[in-house]
């Protein structure tokens, strides 16, 4: 299982601005890659290219050596699953139905889920601690539960690469950590996870790699401890921070601490 992005560039129109400008990186089994960058910097566009939604990109995105733009959606879906931001649904399906939709790729064209599929969906929900919600409406559960439902849906799809668009957006303080813990468990189980986040601490706490995108370019690539520093965060986000070492028992990691209220000097 491999995903290699090399010299990826993309613009929404022929002579338009390059949203992605010569991006290269690759991921391997067990990676949890946190993609950081300010709003509108092209993180979502990059994901849409990797998922095969946008196909007129320059450069190459190779999934197990095959170019994404030449693969059909059924083939991509076998290896790459997409976990969008959880939004309020138009139609209030039950949680079980939402998870079952992830199995569609493994069914015949005209088939509907059978008992085996239901058992499989139920097992995935149980592993994420949301089995008790199976008959609840997807619109009635909390944002954290919705995010876990979407993760369960991606798990039953049996793809080993999970692309998550800001999985902690719209979650409260506690649910952010609960969802991130589940996600880092998945990376430990051998999934490749590429997620975007706005919180550098999430990169420090959970990711083994981070990619900082700014102006459509990769301006930092490496372990969060090595590449995320106060200077970079100041340049990208315009926020004054100290990156502090933090010890907790035998564990040790870094955390971002805003100073002077972050943007204090402008007040």
């Amino acid at each position, binding site marked *: 299982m491999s995903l290699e992005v090399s010299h990826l560039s993309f613009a929404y129109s022929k002579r338009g601005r390059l949203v992605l400008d010569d991006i290269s990186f690759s991921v391997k089994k067990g990676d949890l890659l946190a993609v950081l960058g300010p709003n509108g910097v092209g993180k979502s566009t990059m994901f*849409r290219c990797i*998922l*095969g*939604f946008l196909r007129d990109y320059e450069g190459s995105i190779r999934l197990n050596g095959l170019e994404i733009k030449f693969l*059909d*959606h*059924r*083939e*991509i*879906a*076998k290896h*790459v*699953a*997409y976990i*969008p931001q959880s939004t309020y*649904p*138009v*139609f*209030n*399906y*039950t949680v079980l*139905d939402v998870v079952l*939709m*992830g199995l*569609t*790729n493994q*069914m015949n*064209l*005209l*088939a*509907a*889920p059978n008992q085996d599929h239901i058992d499989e969906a139920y097992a995935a929900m149980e592993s994420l*601690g*949301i089995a*008790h*919600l*199976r*008959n*609840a409406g997807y619109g*009635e*559960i*909390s944002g*954290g*539960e919705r995010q*876990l439902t979407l993760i369960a849906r991606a798990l039953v*799809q049996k793809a080993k690469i999970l692309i998550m668009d800001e999985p902690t957006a719209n979650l409260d303080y*506690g*649910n952010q950590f*609960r*969802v991130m*813990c*589940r996600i880092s468990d998945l990376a430990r189980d051998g999934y490749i996870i590429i997620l975007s986040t706005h919180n550098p601490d999430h990169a420090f706490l959970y990711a083994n790699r981070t990619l900082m995108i700014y102006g459509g370019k990769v301006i930092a690539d490496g372990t969060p401890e090595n590449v995320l520093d106060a200077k970079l965060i100041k340049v990208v986000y315009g926020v004054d921070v100290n990156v502090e070492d933090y010890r907790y028992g035998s564990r040790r990691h870094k955390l971002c601490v805003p100073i002077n209220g972050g943007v204090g000097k402008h007040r």
Partner: protein
Amino acid sequence: MADAVTTPSASDREQLADDAVSGAGTDTAIIPSVADRDLPNYRFRFLLLILAVVFCAVASFVVGRFSMSIHEVVLLLLSPVFPVPEIWDDAMYSVVYNIRLPRILVAFLVGAALSTAGAAYQGMFQNPLVSPDILGASAGAGLGAALAIYLYLGTGAITVFAFVGGLVAVGTAYAVSRLVRGNTILSMVLAGILVGSLFSASISYIKLVADTNDQLPAITYWLMGSLAGATMEDVYFAGVVIIIGIIPLFLLRWRMNVLTLGEDEAKSMGINTNLLRLVVIVSATLITAVSVSISGIIGWVGLVIPHFCRMVFGYDYRRIIPAAVLMGGGFLLLVDDFARTIASTEVPLGILTAFVGAPIFAYLLILRGRES
């Protein structure tokens, strides 16, 4: 002592913290927001719905100017298959088999078709406020019918012209939307509005130049929708097309669930969205166009009935499609019974469905607003 009562002690505080932790389950579990619950008994609900539709159908034979008892109707209906005592006269036989049977079948078929097409379009456009003529099917069929009436063609030709007109309108809207870059859903809705208003303007033009003595009233009356004069030929024509159109929707009903999540999510789960959407559009358009072509423009059924289906049967298209067939058919049967009995002359169906549908829809909207 009094102090100890009002301020929690250290051990109390620990207990509180313990409760909070155990309440959250394991340390990484999401705090549950909704308790476990059972699904409603959908089989039982389907059984009730089928019984209600059968009752409506039998009752529809009894209702009307020519009075007969339910006993006579049931025996008459059983007579081709079972040896039953002959207690009817020729007039009664003729009313049942030549007038009421085709009319009842057409009412059921048209109601079933419009509400199924509405349900399919609502899912595909991810919008519960969409009706089957969103892509211009009704306006196209109306133009076809108006043209046929203007050219003094017969009733059969009116049906065929209307059917073709509906297909042409939707085909045009689809082709225009494919030329637009970007959001497919939005461009299809806009193309539908565009084509619909163009075809409506053409209908107005034909009305303007039509003979005011016979053609104009005929066009106006046709556009209001009616099942009066339904024949067995209508039943065969509409029946075949509607069954051909409903079969793909029925077979693909699980995949339609995935399509309601939107273009990107459906693609990410391996769905060929362009093909699936095309199949849904072609099927829903076929059944909408053929319905409009034999009954005229009957609004509201395709908009309101799918909402009822969701209230009773949930959101899963595996249940919504069969429910829409039964509920839509039953609903139009009932409304048609009123159309032929409440006044001394027939009331056009399109007027009645609006009078019934609009208040129901307002009620549903208010109810939904309260829930959320």
